[in-house]
C-alpha cells in the first residue's frame, strides 16, 4: 500500500536485532520491551498508513516520484488500462488554455503523466470494435506536484488533423462559456472527489451523451466544480471530443455552418452519479 502510492514513512520500526540487544533482566521484561518498542511504531505506522490512504483518497499528498505520479494518475483516470506505456516528468505550466482555470494553473509545478500506445476500450462498446485511432492518441495527465490534485487531461492526435482546429484561448473560451451561462468555479475541494474515473466518464458519454468517443481524434477531460444558469456548483467531468465527423446542422442555412464548428462536442457528466447532464459545442475555436 505504502509503496503503491509513494507513502513516506517518517521513521522506521526497530529491528529485531536492536531490540534484543537491549540489556534485559527477565524474559517477561524482554517481551514487554519488545511489545512496547514494536507496538508504538507499528501503531504509528498503521496510523500513518490510514492517514496517507485517506489523504490519497483526497489526492492531498505529495507525489514523491514518477511511479507515484503514474499510480495516482492511473487511479483517477484508468488510462493505464488502455495504454501500453506510461511515463511521468516534472514540469512547470506555462500558457495553458483551460477556461476559468488557466491563470490558476500558470507557473504551477506539475507531474505530467503521459500514456501512449492507447487503444480505446470502453465498457459499453461492442467488444469486437477495433479502435480506428488505435496507437494514434496520446493522453497527458497533469497532477499538481505539491498536492497531487488532478488539473486536467489532454490528448494529442498523431495523424492528419483535417478540419480539427486548435482550441480557443482561455480568455476566448471563458467568454464563450459565460455567454452560454456556464461557469467553472474551480477545482473540487478535497472533501468532494469524483466517484467515477475519467474513463468511466468517457463511457457515460458513449452510452448517454452526444458524439462517440470512439470516433473522436482527441478526448480531453477536466474535473471541476461547474454551474449553469446560476445553479449550485456541482462536481463534473467535462469531456471534450474533438475531431469528430461533423454533426449535422439543422435549421435555415444550417448546411453553411463550416465543418470545423461542428466536429467537436463537450459533454458534461456528473462526477458523482455518472449521469450525462448536457452537451454543447461551446466553446468554438477562435
Amino acid at each position, binding site marked *: 500500500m505504502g509503496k503503491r502510492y509513494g507513502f513516506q514513512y517518517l521513521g522506521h520500526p526497530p529491528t529485531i536485532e536492536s531490540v534484543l540487544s537491549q540489556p534485559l533482566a527477565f524474559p517477561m521484561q524482554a517481551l514487554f520491551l519488545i511489545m512496547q518498542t514494536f507496538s508504538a511504531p507499528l501503531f504509528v505506522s498503521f496510523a500513518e498508513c490510514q492517514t496517507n490512504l485517506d489523504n490519497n483518497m483526497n489526492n492531498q499528498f505529495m507525489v514523491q516520484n514518477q511511479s507515484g505520479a503514474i499510480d495516482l494518475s492511473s487511479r483517477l483516470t484508468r488510462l493505464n488500462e488502455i495504454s501500453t506505456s506510461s511515463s511521468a516528468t516534472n514540469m512547470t505550466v506555462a500558457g495553458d488554455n483551460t477556461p476559468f482555470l488557466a491563470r490558476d494553473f500558470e507557473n504551477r509545478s506539475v507531474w505530467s503523466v503521459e500514456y501512449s500506445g492507447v487503444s480505446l476500450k470502453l465498457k459499453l462498446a461492442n467488444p469486437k470494435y477495433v479502435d480506428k485511432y488505435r496507437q494514434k492518441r496520446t493522453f497527458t495527465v497533469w497532477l499538481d506536484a505539491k498536492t497531487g490534485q488532478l488539473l486536467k487531461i489532454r490528448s494529442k492526435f498523431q495523424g492528419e488533423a483535417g478540419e480539427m482546429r486548435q482550441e480557443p484561448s482561455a480568455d476566448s473560451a471563458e467568454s464563450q462559456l*459565460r455567454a*452560454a*451561462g456556464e461557469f467553472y468555479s474551480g477545482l473540487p475541494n478535497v472533501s468532494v472527489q469524483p466517484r467515477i474515473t475519467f474513463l468511466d466518464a468517457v463511457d457515460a458519454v458513449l452510452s448517454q451523451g452526444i458524439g462517440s468517443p470512439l470516433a473522436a481524434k482527441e478526448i480531453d477531460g477536466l474535473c471541476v466544480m461547474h454551474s449553469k*444558469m446560476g445553479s449550485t456548483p456541482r462536481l463534473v467531468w467535462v469531456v471534450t471530443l474533438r475531431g469528430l465527423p461533423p454533426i449535422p446542422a439543422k435549421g435555415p442555412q444550417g448546411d453553411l455552418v463550416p465543418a470545423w464548428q461542428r466536429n467537436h462536442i463537450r459533454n458534461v457528466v456528473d462526477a458523482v452519479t455518472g449521469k450525462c447532464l448536457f*452537451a454543447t*459545442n461551446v466553446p468554438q475555436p477562435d
Partner: protein
Amino acid sequence: MQGNRYAVNYDISNAPTDDSTHSYQCDLDTTTGTWQFSYDGTAWQSYQDDYWKTAVGATVQWTGEIYNKEDDMPGTATDKCNFTGCQYSVDGVYQDAGLVAGDVSSDDPNEWGAQWVSGTAFNIWDIHPL
C-alpha cells in the same frame, strides 16, 4: 444558435416525459445580444453573441428533431405529438404564427409524419417507432 459563432445545446438529462405538456419560448434582447430560452416559464439557456446586437431573427421554425436517425421522433400515428400555440414576436409583441398547410412538412415522409392543424398548431409523429 448561429451568430458570429454556431452553438448547439443538447439537454440530455431533461427530456420531457411521455404525454406531458410544456411551453417553450425564446426571446432576443438586442441591447445585450442575448437570446433567452425558457422552459415552462423557467430560464433554461441563454446565448449571448454580439452579432445579435445589430440583428434580429428573420425566420421562425417549430421543429421536431432527433439526433440519430435511429432515434424516435416524438409521437406515434395514434398518439401524435401536438405543437400548439405557435407564435412569434415583433418588437416584443407576440402574434399567431399564421401557419398554412404548405408550411408543415417532413424531411422524410417515410420516416416521420407531419400534419397541419391550424394557424397555430400542427402534429408530428414517427412512422416506425421502435
